[in-house]
């Protein structure tokens, strides 16, 4: 966070800051008013309130009393919110109060230009912030679905929406019963067991074959390199439904449909492209003179591989393995066709739950999966940095 001030901050004219604050108040008033019954009244009250506060803060009390004024606004909104809407109102009031307290001073003292070059026109400044708001909205769009699932999984009711008790932060509105259901229900436990059984074996297969092949592909003279690469990458390109259809037809021909082996082989095939891509990417920066040096010092190829090459490409191998693991762990289309009821995995059980008997246990499972994916994401990011450090690239 740099504190460089590019443009001086100064008090804006009275008309400007009062008008902007009133407009913001009116905008917030629409929603608050609508929720209370009359949006028109909300607009008027919001505009008047914010206009008056802005006048009071900037013109009368000034910059010296900023801290006190912002606390005052916070208290005022919190109190108002509590009187109107109880506990949830208090939370909303606190948020609004904090925001408007900051907003009034931000506008009133031209702070919004502090980090921008001085020659920008008002229109450009407006666009600069509008653009940021748009981006913020898109980020909200990206993350909201995941954030909504988590609190809902603690719902005491079997509903898929926030109950009034939850909104009142009433402890009675929350419970762990969906988690309890997940850990006691035999269907879910069987599915979990299958997932935990299938994914590691599939990962092992794709990493074992994939790493060897990636090393082979990275040699300087490989005949038919492009064709081989295209074949090995193809499971990633072909739409899953087509892979699933083909595997269903073919595996039932050779008696693998509906068996663990069939599902494991199918998932291993789907994970291979990820291993190939990550490991070949790691090998691009690999210095071949290291293996020659090792050979020169008397190491045989196997020793060279395990003592020199493997430690250096290990980050790529592990992140490839994680990709392969998550591919298998998340996969539902192929297992739906290649597996039978005995190989029901976690995603399959979720899919059935979503399509037929929708149960909130899905949300508990979803939350657990989100936590797992956050863990995996952290691991991959750490590995990427380690790999770049090892290969002498600057950490990104």
């Amino acid at each position, binding site marked *: 966070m740099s504190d460089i001030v590019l443009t001086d901050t100064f008090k804006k004219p009275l008309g400007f800051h009062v008008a902007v604050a009133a407009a913001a108040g009116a905008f917030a008033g629409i929603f608050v008013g609508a929720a209370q019954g009359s949006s028109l009244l909300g607009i008027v009250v919001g505009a008047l309130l914010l206009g008056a506060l802005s006048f009071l803060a900037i013109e009368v009390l000034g910059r010296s009393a900023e801290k006190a004024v912002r606390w005052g606004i916070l208290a005022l909104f919190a109190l108002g919110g509590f009187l109107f809407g109880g506990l949830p109102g208090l939370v909303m009031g606190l948020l609004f109060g904090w925001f408007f307290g900051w907003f009034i001073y931000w506008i009133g003292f031209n702070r919004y230009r502090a980090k921008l070059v001085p020659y920008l026109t008002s229109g450009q400044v407006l666009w600069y912030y509008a653009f940021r708001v748009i981006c913020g909205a898109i980020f909200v769009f990206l993350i909201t679905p995941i954030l909504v699932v988590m609190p809902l999984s603690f719902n005491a009711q079997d509903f898929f929406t926030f109950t009034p008790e939850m909104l009142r932060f009433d402890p009675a509105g929350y419970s762990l019963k969906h988690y309890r259901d997940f850990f006691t229900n035999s269907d879910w436990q069987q599915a979990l067991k299958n997932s935990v059984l299938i994914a590691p074996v599939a990962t092992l297969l794709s990493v074992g074959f994939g790493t060897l092949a990636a090393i082979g592909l990275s040699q*300087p003279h490989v005949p038919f390199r492009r064709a081989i690469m295209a074949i090995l990458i193809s499971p990633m390109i072909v739409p899953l439904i087509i892979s699933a259809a083909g595997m269903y037809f073919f595996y039932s021909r050779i008696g693998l449909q509906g068996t663990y082996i069939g599902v494991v082989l199918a998932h291993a095939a789907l994970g291979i492209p990820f291993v190939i*891509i990550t490991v070949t990417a790691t090998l691009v920066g690999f210095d071949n003179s290291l293996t020659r040096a090792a050979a020169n010092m008397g190491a045989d190829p196997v020793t060279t591989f395990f003592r020199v090459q493997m430690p250096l490409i290990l980050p790529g191998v592990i992140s490839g393995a994680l990709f392969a693991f998550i591919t298998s762990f998340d996969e539902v289309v192929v297992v739906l066709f290649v597996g039978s009821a005995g190989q029901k995995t976690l995603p399959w059980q979720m899919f059935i739950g979503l399509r037929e008997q929708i149960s909130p246990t*899905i949300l508990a499972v979803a939350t657990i999966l989100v936590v797992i994916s956050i863990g995996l994401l952290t691991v991959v990011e750490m590995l990427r940095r380690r790999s770049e450090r090892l290969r002498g690239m600057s950490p990104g």
Partner: protein
Amino acid sequence: MTDATHDTTARGKPGPMLAADGTPLKRSLARALRMQKIRALLLIAPLLLFVLVTFIAPIADMLFRSVENDIVANTLPDTVEELASWDGASGETPSEAVYQALYFDLFIAAEAKEHTKLGTRLNYEQTGISSLFRSTGRNLDDLGKDYQKTLKKIDKSWDDGAFWYALMSGEGGEEVLESHRLQYMQLIGQSPRSIISRFWCVIRGIFYKACPTALEDIDLNFTPSAEAAQMLPATVAAYSDFAVFTVLADGDVVAEEDPWEAVYAAFAQDLNAPGTVEKIQSYSGPGQAELLAVTENLADLPAPDFKTTFLDIDKDWGKIENWQTIKIYSPKYTSGYFLNSVDLMKTPEGIDARPENQRIYLKLFKRTLFMSLVITGSCILLGYPVAWILANLPARKANLLMILVLLPFWTSLLVRTSAWKIMLQQQGVINDTLVWLGLVADGNRLVMINNQFGTIVAMTHILLPFMILPMYSVMQTIPPTYLRAAKSLGATNWTAFWRVYFPQTVPGIGAGSILVFILSIGYYITPEIVGGTTGTFISNRIAYHISSSLNWGLAAALGTILLGVVLLLYWAYDRIVGIDNVKLG
């Protein structure tokens, strides 16, 4: 090396350069290169083999199934042969010979319960055939039963399985029997084991459990007599069918079982064939007396009228359309599934459009393409600003925001889909919020799920990271000085963006768009859950044909078309971006 150079200078003329061990350098180098190539290929080979078996073979199998159509020829082999000479456009039903072949083909098919499969298959092309086959299969016994009763009256031993066995068996008729065994195996969809599958069975026997004995290796304990086959060809054929089925399907002994009704019908037909009586009179073998007794009562055994029999069972056997359908779909390979997937069909006059109310696939393909385009478009619109801000913020802030992009990317697809399902529901979070804010009346909540809107929103969210990441990696490489230079030369903000910045980001947009488009065109899970009936894709139809309607050929044809589109797009992607530039995270 030094020796080699020394040699050349000493002789004064350029000779081949030699390596340290005395071989020419060129050859030595070529050998080293070859070794390197072989080593690389040996490293790749296990995986290549693995992918070929677990992935490429299934895809090839699907491609094959989209044209494969041997069920008609396998179930009704003789009928198809007889039908070849029938002119479908003549307006007349086929000849008696066709009905006769159909009787014997259908009899064994009905015993093996395969006739309903054929009925289902042909029902895709002509509705009503399925029930026609099913009802016919139930009533085929009647014809033979009458003859059976008459024969029993003439001599008791005609009702005895052991007598028939004695009459039929002998030597020299292996060929007839084996051809019927092969026909039966084709009927139940099995072919003789190839060397590869025999090898596979050995491996399976070692690791898992042994394969059951191949059908062609089972001893039938029956050999038709060549003499009987020459005298009573149809009877021996029908009895061979019976013998093959008794051993292979039921696991019984031929000599102990009473023959099928079809054998009696065939016998009656043989007796009425010209020359049979003379042959019987000169015959001397088992059952000679009984056969002679039958020839004396020939008047009680008129030649069977197969056509009338079929028409009595179901008058639809007189319908030209049904016979046309059987004839059109009798070749072993057909373009019918592909025609079906583009709303065309085969008729005796050639290829024609389907009736208006059956045209769904072109509409579905168009909808899939349209919705994929909309999803790609909205991903560009939403992804561009985000990629821009990620590429232009200081590294620390950008990394923090990147987590917001990567977290959905890493989260299970089903988690995100279920999140959208509960958010978009009528009683869901978004509707509740809108109602609480008073923007929507409680009585008419928005319908945002089980339609195209739901699919587009959910899939845009799911595929957005795939758009942002390639755009981001391209935008990162564009120096910010270009924009400043443009502005200092007098360009407005818009001109600087549109003429200088935007053209440089086009590769990123292209890469992201093709990626998103390829992914969305084959999506199955999300449309299935949030798409309802109007928001589904072609992939949902493929899944339906595999698991519900069991029209695998059509599913394979639809899949092949989809695969073709995807591969075409992928080829374009490779030309524009290159496979090697696919990056993850």
